[in-house]
């Protein structure tokens, strides 16, 4: 199993009221001197290998549905080796939390 990540962000020139609200809240908490823009991250689990064709498919999915290219940009990238390789003891970058769900097979889980 491989994973492809699609990041979607509002274009720089598009107003981002959510980001502004988050920036304001952080300022009230003492996190000053920063500006937040809020986007979306899609984690796409792919059955089998990520071939160039598969990646092109996902790119098309991103431009068709995941992002509205009138107001958003998107970025598609392959995340390497996911299944069973997460080392619980390994430190994560910059002290962030380990992202949950790496061992869950969303492709085959029951949907309601």
């Amino acid at each position, binding site marked *: 199993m491989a994973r492809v990540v699609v990041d979607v962000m*509002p274009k720089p020139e*598009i*107003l981002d*009221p*959510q980001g*502004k*609200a988050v920036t304001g809240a952080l300022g009230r908490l003492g996190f000053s001197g920063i500006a937040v823009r809020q986007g979306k991250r899609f984690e796409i689990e792919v059955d089998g290998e990520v071939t160039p064709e598969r990646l092109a498919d996902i790119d098309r999915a991103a431009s068709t*549905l*995941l992002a*509205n290219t*009138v*107001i958003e940009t998107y970025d598609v990238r392959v995340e390497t080796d996911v299944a069973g390789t997460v080392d619980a003891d390994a430190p994560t970058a910059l002290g962030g939390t380990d992202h949950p769900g790496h061992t869950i097979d969303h492709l085959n889980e029951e949907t309601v």
Partner: protein
Amino acid sequence: MTARVGVVTFPGSLDDSDALRAIRLSGAEALPLWHGSDSLDGVDAVVLPGGFSYGDYLRCGAIARFAPVMDEVVRAAGAGMPVLGICNGFQILCEAHLLPGALIRNDVRTFVCRDQGLRVESDRTAWSSRLDVGQEITIVLKNGEGGFVADADTLERLEGEGRVVFRYTGGNPNGSMNDIAGIANERGNVVGMMPHPEHNVDALTGPSLDGRPIFASVLDFLATRV
């Protein structure tokens, strides 16, 4: 023959019943249409109503835009059928690229619900011929994501081609560029607007009856076309 105007119900549509009622009051036959259908049941015009289709998941209108019925709506709109998108329906029309631009979260960061002043900017659409350019009307506005945005070229084209149909007056409620409340496609058969004319058709429930001419307009349009 009585005109037949359909209203599409998506999962999460809220104002489909009001739209159907407004159409009946205008004298047309109102037909409920279902998002999962691949037929428009032979209607003469279509209204995409307000609400929160598919829970506004992903983006407002983004998932509804790919509902089976939308293939037919896009095809019919291309053939000249009048289509009116109200609020969430406007968002769906933009997502479907039947109208340019997009609707983003209100700059005021709150849901806005008010009796909104509008100025009519075009009477050359299927949905505004009964109104006069410059006329001031009051229509209910209620949305969280009603800020119309488009790039500079698109805005210039909309303005230059007289495709801005309604403009907010008395203050911009949501950050819409150029105070735009409603626009039309080049042909004028497809109109999207954030305010809700279907709520302004009965003195019991609205401060004006200014929504009525919008539904009457499309009947005129259909009558002259047949």
